């Protein structure tokens, strides 16, 4: 696959030397469509969309997936460098430009970073890309030396012919290798011979993050740029009525007041002027039909919907018959709306002229951003340039193009000068796409201490139907039921159902942990209640039903051992376990927590045993589990967006609380060595957190909470759970 190398050339970009990371060159945030300048080393060996090598021996690796903290740039570089036998300390990294053809995520068919699948989806394509390029370089050297390619070897960006001691750097082979045809099926390395993959490599993106040098989308500065901030109608779907801007216009630094049908923006010389200007506007909103929507109504609707039969997504054995036998238990578990609250508030910088549009932002969906901007502006696709950036937190929020479209609509009212639109935290939280409310209901029957029938119904919004319509088949949201259908336990009779129930007015979207968040929570809470009914220890009860999932059983054993499962704890302290196969990783988690007489919870310790197959960068896997656990525990302890009069009631971190360092537990992550293909890890810690916490509180108090966030009054015994 020959690529237009001009579109990706590095010339006009300053290559930033990453202090402390050897000589890894980072070309982040700089224009990706720069024309090649005179004097740049030419030609370039570009055997595929991911690799470019020039005659100066510079190896540039193009990152198909976006870096938002999950360490993917380092992991992708490691996979490519491993099979390419490139010197990992000398590679340059570059953001991919928008292109579904070249950089589409194999799972989704479009260019998207999400679902914890970057390593899983790109594992084989990247290995092939690296191995194919390596084979061509080796062949080029062998031809030059007139020897058998099999007698040559490659390492550290050079080919060696050991018998004669000859060595050629990749840069010297660029011309010859470019003339060769890539092998149809490149020979991949035996994982036993990996020298890069599996090493705890230092991340490439972090050195510039300790000194303020890194440029996120929100940090973009352009000559003549104006700063803007926006206000949308506080009621979902409402419109602007009347705007009195007389006071705002008096504020020094305010430039322009932009009034559109559904939002108002103020531009200024800096964010403070824009914000003060916006605050000084007297806006009357037409609230529209949603002015009475409330959480109470949404929950009543959801509970009613969950009584209906759902579309059957999976059925095995005879559930109806066996649910009627043995000891039966029926429970329901409920999860609230959640905002993403990425640390970097939503933002986008736009320069729009008559015949082009440039976008600077951080997005998880490069090509979709480009496409929707082209649609909005009527410009041809190739006149829309998207400069992606390192992202200050995605968590699914940046799977949406709304911030970009809003910024472009503001820019349409300006005169072609660049404008940076930054959301206040209040707007960011009150105009999110929210993790939907879900209600998962489960019925099961026990025989001889094991589950013999299991009926599981998920009721909630079908995010996938909006976000990826072709994937919404037969009325089933494959994400919402993912963790339910993929159940790890040996259960002879089971049925999984889905009921679509869209909340009125409130937009819903993907949120870190996605469907498995509700599935793992409901399943693992319910399993603890079944264990109690069966009179069994929660670990032993699970262990006896994991015959078909030995990797999970091994993780459970390790977590039990490392957490001191079964050892005595003080009064009102407890351990809770949960297990999962979500995202293709096998994880068992034990949370140890205590509850005071007011129902306040203190997290004592978390132990996780993780089998994610081959851990490309083991330290990154550990970091993702640690961070994911904190993210999930935050939601379990505090996270809830509520709606009153059609508005989100929370607005900033004082009422949408985050776990802080003084509340964070000790976290011990134990990786299990494995030669299996890599699993996903970015979201797995989130889904691992909430049921294990809840089960710890169940053990500590005997109170079976069945909603999140946790109810402190119920834990204090002041009301029923």
């Amino acid at each position, binding site marked *: 696959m020959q690529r237009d190398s001009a579109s990706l050339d590095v010339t006009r970009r300053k290559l930033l030397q990453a202090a*402390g990371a050897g000589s890894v060159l980072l070309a982040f945030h700089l224009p990706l469509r720069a024309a090649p300048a005179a004097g740049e080393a030419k030609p370039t060996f570009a055997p595929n969309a991911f690799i470019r090598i020039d005659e100066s021996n510079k190896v540039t690796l193009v990152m198909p997936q976006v870096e*938002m*903290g*999950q*360490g993917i740039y380092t992991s992708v570089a490691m996979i490519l460098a491993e099979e390419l036998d490139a010197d990992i300390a000398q590679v340059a990294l570059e953001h991919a430009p928008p292109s579904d053809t070249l950089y589409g995520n194999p799972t989704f068919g479009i260019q998207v970073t999400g679902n914890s699948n970057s390593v899983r989806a790109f594992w084989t394509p990247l290995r092939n890309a690296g191995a194919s390029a390596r084979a061509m370089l080796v062949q080029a050297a062998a031809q030059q030396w007139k020897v058998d390619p099999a007698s040559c070897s490659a390492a550290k960006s050079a080919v060696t012919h050991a018998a004669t001691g000859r060595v050629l750097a990749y840069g010297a082979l660029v011309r010859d290798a470019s003339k060769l045809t890539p092998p149809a099926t490149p020979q991949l390395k035996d994982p036993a011979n990996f020298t890069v993959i599996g090493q705890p490599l*230092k*991340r490439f993106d*972090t*050195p510039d*993050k*300790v*000194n*303020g*040098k*890194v*440029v*996120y989308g*929100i*940090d973009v*500065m352009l000559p003549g740029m104006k*700063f803007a901030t926006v206000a949308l109608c506080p009621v979902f779907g409402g419109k602007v009525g009347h705007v009195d801007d007389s006071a705002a216009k008096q504020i*020094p*630094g305010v430039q322009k007041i932009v009034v559109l049908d559904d939002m108002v923006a103020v531009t200024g*010389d*800096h*964010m*403070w*002027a824009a914000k003060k200007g916006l605050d000084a506007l007297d806006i009357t909103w037409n609230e529209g039909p949603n002015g009475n929507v409330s959480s109470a109504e949404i929950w009543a609707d959801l509970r009613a919907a969950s009584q209906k039969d759902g579309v059957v997504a999976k059925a095995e054995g005879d559930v109806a018959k066996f649910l009627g036998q043995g000891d039966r238990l029926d429970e329901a578990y409920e999860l609230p709306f959640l905002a993403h*609250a*990425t*640390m*970097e*508030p939503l933002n986008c910088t736009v320069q729009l002229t008559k015949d082009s549009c440039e976008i600077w932002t951080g997005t998880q969906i490069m090509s979709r951003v480009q496409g929707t901007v082209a649609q909005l502006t009527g410009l041809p696709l190739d006149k829309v340039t998207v400069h992606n950036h*390192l*992202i*200050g*937190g*995605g*968590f699914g929020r940046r799977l949406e193009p709304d911030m970009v479209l809003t910024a472009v609509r503001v820019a349409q009212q300006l005169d072609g000068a660049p404008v940076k639109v*930054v959301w206040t*935290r209040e707007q960011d939280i009150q105009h999110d796409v929210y993790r939907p409310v879900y209600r998962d209901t489960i019925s099961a029957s026990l025989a001889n201490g094991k589950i013999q029938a299991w009926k599981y119904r998920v009721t909630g919004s079908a995010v996938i139907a909006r976000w990826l319509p072709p994937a919404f088949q037969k009325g089933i949201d494959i994400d919402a039921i993912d963790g339910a259908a993929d159940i790890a336990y040996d259960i002879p009779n089971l049925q999984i159902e889905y009921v679509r129930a869209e909340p009125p007015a409130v937009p819903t979207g993907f949120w870190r942990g996605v469907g498995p968040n509700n599935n793992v929570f409901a399943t693992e809470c319910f399993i603890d209640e079944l264990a109690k009914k069966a009179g069994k220890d929660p670990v032993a009860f699970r262990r006896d039903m994991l015959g078909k999932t030995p990797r999970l059983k091994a993780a459970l054993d390790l977590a039990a051992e490392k957490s001191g499962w079964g050892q005595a704890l003080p009064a009102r302290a407890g351990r809770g376990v949960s297990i999962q196969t979500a995202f293709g990783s096998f994880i068992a988690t034990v949370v140890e927590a205590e509850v005071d007489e007011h129902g306040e919870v203190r997290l004592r310790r978390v132990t996780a045993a993780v089998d994610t197959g081959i851990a490309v960068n083991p*330290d990154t896997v550990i*970091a993702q589990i*640690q*961070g*994911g*656990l*904190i*993210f999930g525990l935050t939601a379990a302890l505090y996270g809830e967006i509520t709606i009153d009069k059609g508005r989100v009631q929370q607005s*900033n*971190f*004082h009422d949408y609380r*985050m*776990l*802080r*360092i*003084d509340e*964070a537990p*000790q*976290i011990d992550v134990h990786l299990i060595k494995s030669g299996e293909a890599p699993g996903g890890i970015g979201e797995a810690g989130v889904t691992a957190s909430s049921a294990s916490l809840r089960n710890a509180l169940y053990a500590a108090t005997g109170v079976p909470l069945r909603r999140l966030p946790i109810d402190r009054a119920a834990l204090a015994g002041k009301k029923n759970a």
Partner: protein
Amino acid sequence: MATLKINGESKVFEATEDTPLLWVLRDVLGLTGTKFGCGIAQCGACTVHVDGKPVRSCLLPVGGIGDRAITTIEGIGATPAGASVQKAWLDLEVIQCGYCQSGQIMAAAALLAATPHPDDADIDAAMAGNICRCGTYVRIRDAIKRAAAARAA
């Protein structure tokens, strides 16, 4: 015209006295290492030092700063505590998305400058104002202890 002493240099700029230092740094002077997270002193992303003390720049009007010395993330590496914190942060690979980390590093550097051997309670007190949405707290705690040990050695 106003003047502030930032990272040892005099910076002249134009902004009304009520403008928070955060926006002067970021939007007027182009020192974008200091981050906006909440605007209401809840997250710590905007932390800078004023005469060595950690301050939330999102609520600090420039008119009241006078000739006190401001240090930002761009300048903290020049201080011994700052340099040791930055090194420990990289050694232990604390950072994920990194957006909160300017503020975390500024808070940690101020802590170590004032309390060379912080215990867990000191760390809690000094760092609880800084939210990390990526959940890097475990490593932040370890890195502060490592930086403290390195400075003692």
